[in-house]
């Protein structure tokens, strides 16, 4: 039987031995797990002793009382996080207030068991965490074996696909039941919505294909001398109908030509995403400035808009997968939430950098910096 090491940290001897009694014969198994997982129980009466134990022993789970005689439970939690140990913490506290729980979970506690707890509550928390640890290990094992299975990605993806499918299905049922009578005209609005939802699903699937191709490395990269300005021009051309709809003007500034060693498809994805975002999140009648210039061996692409902008918190999560900034201003704008994470991944492949500058109500400016190995003008001649 595989065993996880559980460290019980509580100043009350009664609680320590109580927990040990509850968990001594407890084990967890699932139909899809080969192993039954049991627990080695260790204990420490203070935070200081807990830290010394964790430093010297592989500890999988810490059951941590918040109120301790010396340093507090939250301090121990912070220490574990700082050291980046592969250790999960379940906080135990008699102050079952939301604040303590929020603080602990924000600091990285996995779960929260309010005192007094029943043996069943403790077991449930541990079972939950054990399953999480098991899944995590399995995922990393699969990744090591080269199987690109990403539970989190898949489950978020299923959520993002399920939302439009639910909406579409709901409308189809309404039509099937003739909810608004027998006249086809009554269903025009619904049909428009159906089209919109299927289109956005198509967009999501296309973005997902881009992303999986990039991630799996299956897409053949064809590096050649490529003119970024030319690609920017064609991206702008492609977006024109969309820009006209929103009455947004697009201007291109900077070098007339800037060649670098790159895969044209990849540059196209980067520019398409940045420019379409700049239009999408713009105001009616706004403008987009696209600036491309060579600078000390780097190609700098800046796409600025006069749109709705973002606050600092929103900017911080921008490049993660499936992050869509949701607020009053964006609720009618559709998107897959993958565009910028795709851009980021591509930019990383060139050892480049992307950053954002934004002010709510004023606009955002995205800058991509790519090392330009082959260049026009002085950079190229400097190289000789």
């Amino acid at each position, binding site marked *: 039987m595989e065993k996880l090491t559980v460290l019980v940290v509580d100043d009350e001897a009664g609680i320590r031995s109580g927990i040990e009694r509850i968990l001594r014969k407890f084990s967890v198994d699932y139909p899809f797990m080969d192993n039954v997982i049991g627990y080695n129980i260790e204990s420490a009466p203070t935070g200081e002793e807990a830290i010394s134990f964790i430093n010297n022993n592989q500890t999988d789970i810490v059951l941590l009382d918040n109120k301790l005689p010396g340093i507090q439970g939250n301090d121990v939690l912070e220490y574990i996080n700082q050291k980046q140990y592969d250790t999960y913490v379940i906080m135990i506290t008699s102050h*079952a207030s*939301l604040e303590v*729980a929020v603080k602990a*979970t924000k600091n990285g506690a*996995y*779960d*929260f068991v*309010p005192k007094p707890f029943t043996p069943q509550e403790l077991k*449930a*928390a541990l079972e*939950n965490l054990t*399953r*999480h640890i098991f*899944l995590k290990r399995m995922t990393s094992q699969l990744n090591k074996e080269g199987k690109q299975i990403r*539970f*989190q990605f*898949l*489950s*978020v993806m*299923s*959520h993002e696909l*399920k*939302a439009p499918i*639910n*909406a579409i*299905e*709901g*409308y189809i049922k*309404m039509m099937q039941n003739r*909810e608004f009578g027998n006249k086809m005209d009554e269903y025009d609005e619904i049909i428009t*919505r159906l089209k919109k*939802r299927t289109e956005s699903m198509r967009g999501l699937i296309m973005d997902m294909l881009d992303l999986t191709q990039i991630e799996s490395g299956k897409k053949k990269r064809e590096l050649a001398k490529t003119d970024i300005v030319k690609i920017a021009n064609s991206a702008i051309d492609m977006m024109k109908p969309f820009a006209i709809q929103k009455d947004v003007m697009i201007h291109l500034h900077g070098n007339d030509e800037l060649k670098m060693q790159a895969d044209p498809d990849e540059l196209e994805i980067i520019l398409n995403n940045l420019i379409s975002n700049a239009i999408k999140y713009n105001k009616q009648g706004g403008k987009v400035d696209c600036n491309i210039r060579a600078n000390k061996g780097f190609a700098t692409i800046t796409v600025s808009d006069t749109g709705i902008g973002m606050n600092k918190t929103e900017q911080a999560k921008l490049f993660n997968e499936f992050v869509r900034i*949701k*607020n*009053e201003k964006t*609720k009618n704008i559709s998107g897959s939430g993958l565009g910028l994470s795709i851009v980021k991944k591509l930019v990383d492949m060139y050892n480049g950098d992307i950053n954002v500058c934004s002010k709510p109500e004023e606009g955002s400016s995205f800058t991509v910096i790519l090392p330009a190995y082959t260049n026009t003008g002085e950079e190229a001649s400097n190289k000789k």
Partner: protein
Amino acid sequence: MEEGKTILLVDDDSDYLFQLDHNIKKFGFQTISAESQKEAEEILKTTKPDLAIFDLMMENDDSGFILCYKARQKYPDMPIIIATAVASETGISFDLHSESERKWIKADLYLEKGIRPDQLHREINKLLKI
């Protein structure tokens, strides 16, 4: 009996909200709709619905939980349903934090969004003790 009972519906997917609203009105309830956590908080300040259905992920990933907590403080006896598009039975959650949060912020019921209207009707009646 169902007449006069008001249900608060909160979801940032306007299509889902429209459909839910339509179905629930057909059951004979009155509805109030909100498209965001913020909007719902405003409504809850002045209005006490007989039951509330919250989407989980709106402006924030845990908007439904926050609403749940705030509504519980103000109206402890109002039943709350959290509706989500994530299959709970897969055991794989899109955000593992919410799994643990799920345990200390208790809604009366978690529902899968694809639920059939008649099932939903039954669950609502059960919570309203109709």
